[in-house]
């Protein structure tokens, strides 16, 4: 279980308790978080479930593999943050307290 907060570009936030084992993408969609599009359904093929995370979470969230990187490498993120595809991050209690920024555009 992990308490995850999603913050939209305009600033509004929502917090949900998420069971371990699902992907952050699935958690977002189930909880009605806007703009986590996930067109390919979690196959790391579309790059439309992007999320922005603060650098101090990088060890707990993990780094992208080559397929994921191929979709996100050129996306500009603010200093001190990095980008991941939320379908490639599995929720564990390590992520408790994670704050996710939803990017302004998935396409």
């Amino acid at each position, binding site marked *: 279980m992990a308490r995850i907060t999603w913050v939209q570009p305009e600033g509004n936030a929502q917090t949900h308790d998420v069971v371990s084992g699902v992907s952050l993408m699935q958690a977002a969609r189930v909880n009605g978080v806007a703009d986590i599009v996930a067109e390919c359904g979690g196959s790391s*093929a579309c790059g439309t479930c992007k999320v922005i995370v603060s650098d101090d979470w990088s060890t707990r969230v993990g780094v992208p593999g080559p397929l994921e990187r191929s979709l996100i490498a050129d996306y500009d993120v603010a200093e001190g943050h990095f980008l991941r595809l939320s379908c490639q991050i599995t929720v564990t209690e390590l992520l408790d307290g994670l704050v996710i920024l939803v990017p302004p555009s998935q*396409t």
Partner: protein
Amino acid sequence: MERIAESVIRSIPSHVPSELVRPFPYLIGQKTKAQPHSFIAAIHEGPAVFWVEKAFHGVSDAWVLRRGEDMRKVYADTEHFSARGIAPLSSLIGETWQLLPAEADPPLHSLLRVAMNPLFTPKRMTALEEQIRRYAREYIDSFRNRGACEFLGEFAFEFPIRIFLEMMGMPQDHAAEFLAWEHELLHEANLEKMKKATRTVVAYLREQIEDRRANPRDDLISFGVQAEIDGRRLNDEELVGLCFNLFIGGLDTVSTALALHFRHLAERHDHQRLLRENPDKIPAAIEEFMRAYAAVQTSRICIKETSVSGVTIKPGDRVLLSTYLAGRDPETYPNPEEVILDRNPRQCAFGYGPHLCVGIHLARRELRIAMEEFLAAIPEFSIAPGVEITSYLASIIRPVELPLVWQI
């Protein structure tokens, strides 16, 4: 010549229940003067999975799925389903290359996508927008003061070719030639013409590949020539397959979508007016048009026995995945027959799973920019009076011609 009993040629496999053998309108060679998507609602009242004779390219039988949920399962299931042979073009000319990455399976498929994805990111496609807009304006300017155009022949067919040529580093003055090749390859159900066009395109691509080997540039073919997949370069067959896939991937699909969307606008002046007055609503409208007028059919071949909605699928069975059936599945989209401009549907037109169209960000920009420019330049347009639009029902759902008129 030995005469083979018709019953042998037409035999249905023993595991296919006879009550699941059904007719299906979306077959090669079929055309209609009705709204081409109007046959879908009735299909959704029938079985979830059914068997159609000659459904696959008019050559072999196949299962047809109608539920979006079932199609998504198959798309994502690379253990039981393979993407090989979905567009058997090379065999037409006695060659063996596969369209790549469309016909590749894991592990080669992901390796190819790792290499290709960076070329089609939103950022890279945004950099093409100015060119896309310039091409759209060029075509629109050629007919705006005439008060009439044949939308496909004068705009929608050539427009995506110009962008493709740009990306492939090919000369723009090749557009007419490419158009002719595309036409023979995809628009005529004539085997000899298809063979000839395939040979011609392959020969041309081989020439281009050789040229980029000697003189690499910043274009898609050079990328293919230099790409390292799993520590090695792509061989000649793979390069041809990659280039051919890129060639056919974004041409017909975009032209068709444009024609279907603009036909809708020509017939729905209320929607046309709303979008002309509120161009910021165009992106959402395009998502809804893509759903309601999804036009593409792909397939998979079963490689390991499984079942879909309770129906046994055996190795060797071909399964058709028709995005147009998914787009009007009432289980996914309430009131699917109605076009609701701000519905914001989950998109089905680009497929699903690992093979999801690599060109989604390009396609969306081409469609949006074409609509922005056309609505800005052309006043209220309609289908030419007295014209009944004929549409192909396969292998893509597309009007044959779309004559439009407006006041000047």
